């Protein structure tokens, strides 16, 4: 009898649950119905524009987000019917979420900033909208679309880019110790030795660390200076091995001797490293242009590129529009804006970024970035090596460089691992 009562009770609970869920659904319809009616009524009279909310995901927060939101505000001002909601997600986290969501025909946002190689991979799998005919490739820095283009199909649009132009120093520090930017390799080495002798300086160059990318930026600067853009591209495409004599010599003759001489510090968490460098524990810091927005006085910043540098890495942020967006037209509109006029607005903020859209002029830049933009404009731009290869190898590259930094004698191990782990075509 008790069991029967219990079963009856459970049955009632079940029925009630279904009723609640159903009423929720019906309720949803009911609430939407008057809106529809109102819209229909209004359509016949005043033709109001439908209000749309676009979701955007990007990696920015803090000051970087403030700069990005300036762009979003400008877009919203131009498109009163579109509201943009922004969410911060790290690319590392997105890389685990997006493939699963896409496979199930869903997307967490309408416009998403992500690694170029990831966009190409998702595009190939048929998850993304194409931008052919939406943007004009000729209006962009040469090669910038290569990472997101597969078989002639453009799956992502470039936003502004960070350049990795060289070693930053404080002008006041150099003035205090009578130091001058070098013009030859020998002068560069002599400068490092001179800095090393300054009391209180722990090492001439502070090495930033996080997952390892700051070290890859330094390494790429050496490759671009002594091997040129062509070598960088060949390494990206797997046409040249890491154990190739040309690549090996750059490490053996340029980078490793500096590491062995103690000119680089051990890897230090990269944001902590900014503070230590700024207060004078170290004299030089290799970092991207975003550092201009991270220091107290950007006018005190000076820049030393390796003498004879032939090209610099220009690492853009890319946006993609998943096919599963509810608002494809508006999402594409926003992506196009970010890839064009949005860049003009972004470089005018304290973002520390450079435009990849050639229609942006030097006058559009934030004052401290104007000189940097001129420096970068005078050399070839090259794609970021590890960002272009991506995948598991990218992490291996970062990790192996962390090893090289503390044990430069293990160069052979490092180079052979980089070759062994390079993605097979």
């Amino acid at each position, binding site marked *: 009898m008790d069991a029967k009562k219990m079963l009856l009770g459970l049955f009632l609970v079940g029925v009630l649950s279904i009723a609640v869920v159903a009423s929720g659904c019906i309720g949803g319809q009911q609430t939407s119905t008057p809106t529809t009616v109102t819209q229909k009524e209004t359509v016949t009279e005043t033709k109001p524009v439908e209000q749309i909310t676009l979701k955007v995901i990007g990696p920015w927060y803090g000051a970087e987000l403030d700069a990005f939101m300036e762009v979003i505000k400008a877009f919203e001002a131009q498109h009163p019917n579109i509201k943009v909601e922004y969410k911060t997600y790290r690319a590392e986290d997105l890389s685990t979420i997006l493939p699963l969501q896409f496979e199930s025909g869903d997307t967490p946002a309408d416009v998403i900033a992500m690694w170029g190689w990831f966009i190409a991979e998702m595009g190939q799998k048929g998850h993304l909208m194409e931008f052919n005919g939406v943007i004009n490739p000729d209006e962009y820095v040469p090669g910038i679309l290569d990472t997101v283009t597969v078989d002639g199909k453009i799956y992502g649009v470039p936003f502004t880019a960070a350049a990795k132009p060289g070693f930053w120093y404080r002008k006041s520090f150099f003035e205090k110790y009578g130091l001058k930017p070098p013009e030859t390799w020998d002068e560069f080495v002599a400068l490092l030795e001179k800095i090393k002798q300054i009391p209180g300086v722990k090492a001439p160059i502070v090495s930033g660390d996080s997952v390892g990318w700051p070290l890859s930026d330094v390494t790429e600067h050496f490759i671009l200076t002594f091997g040129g853009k062509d070598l960088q591209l060949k390494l990206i495409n797997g046409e040249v091995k890491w154990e190739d004599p040309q690549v090996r010599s750059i490490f053996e003759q340029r980078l490793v001797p500096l590491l062995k001489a103690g000119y680089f510090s*051990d890897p230090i968490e990269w944001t902590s490293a900014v503070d230590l460098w700024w207060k004078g524990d170290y004299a030089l810091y290799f970092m991207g242009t975003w550092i201009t927005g991270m220091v107290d006085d950007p006018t005190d910043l000076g820049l030393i590129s390796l003498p004879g540098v032939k090209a610099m890495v220009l690492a853009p942020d890319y946006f993609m529009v998943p096919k599963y967006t509810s608002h494809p037209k508006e999402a594409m509109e926003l992506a196009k804006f970010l890839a064009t006029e949005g860049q003009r607005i972004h470089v005018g903020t304290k973002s520390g970024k450079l435009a990849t859209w050639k229609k942006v002029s030097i006058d559009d830049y934030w004052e401290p970035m104007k000189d940097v933009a001129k420096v970068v404009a005078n050399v070839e731009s090259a794609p970021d090596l590890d960002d272009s290869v991506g995948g598991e190898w990218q992490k291996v590259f*970062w*990790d*192996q460089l962390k090893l090289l930094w503390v044990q430069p004698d293990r160069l052979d191990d490092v180079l052979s691992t980089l070759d062994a782990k390079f993605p097979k075509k």
Partner: protein
Amino acid sequence: MRRPRSLTPLFFLLPALALMVPFVIYPVFKTIYLSFFLDGKFVGLENYKNVLLSSDIINLDRFPTKSPPWGALIHNIVWIAIHLPATVFLGLGIALLLRREEVKGSSIVKSIIFLGMVIPMIVGGLIIRFLFEEGAGVIPAIFRVLGIERLAITWTAYPETALFAAILGSIWIWTGFSMLMYSAGLASIPKDYYEAALIDGANRFQIFKNVTWPLLKPITVVVVAMTLLWDLKIFDVVYVATGGGPGGASMVLALQMWDYFARALNYNYAAVVAVLLTALTLIPALWLIRRRE
């Protein structure tokens, strides 16, 4: 006459099953299924062979004569070999030291030690990273004061020390659990036993050996099994403190699985490591369940 079997109990399983089938059982079987495929083709045990023979998992070229990387599986074993006895005996020792009511401030000390368990593991990993960083951390500073310059370095940056930094840091995090369990176990032992032992003329060591330790055996079983499970599935602490580096010197199985999944986008290899990890964790889990039964 035999009573007909009622189906009613099965009915009560339905709510749990409704959740477990899509969220636990199906993913488990799908993961096992995936581990036998590559690029959509059935490859039998090929994935297992490739993963297990990879130097990412077992690197016998370097183990044990050279410094890490020794492979993720060996790193997990080293982790267990150091972390398990250290946390068990440290937790027991602290619980024994602080069990007496006359120890002033014992609850405060216990709370401080337990803090490692309360904070999120990600934060724990960050603290470990800074604890072992030259210039910021207390550990290199201590070695500098002791004049041991070889260890007055950023531990997480060097292949010789990165794994051990993560292990030592995780001892700090996990000892609170062991201490708490043993404290509860010690509180449950009747005082009469100790009084009887004292009357019989037993010394402190004999009392510990013949009274305390045997009565704490059920607690030890739980602590050992839980610690083993924790050691095998360790991820977040390593992810934040060292990222598995440098050069894979502190890579562990769970992080390797994540790398296959999220970096290499190789879901089949990730599934292989997941299956291996599950099989390994089942051993202590089943042992624990049997002991408790």
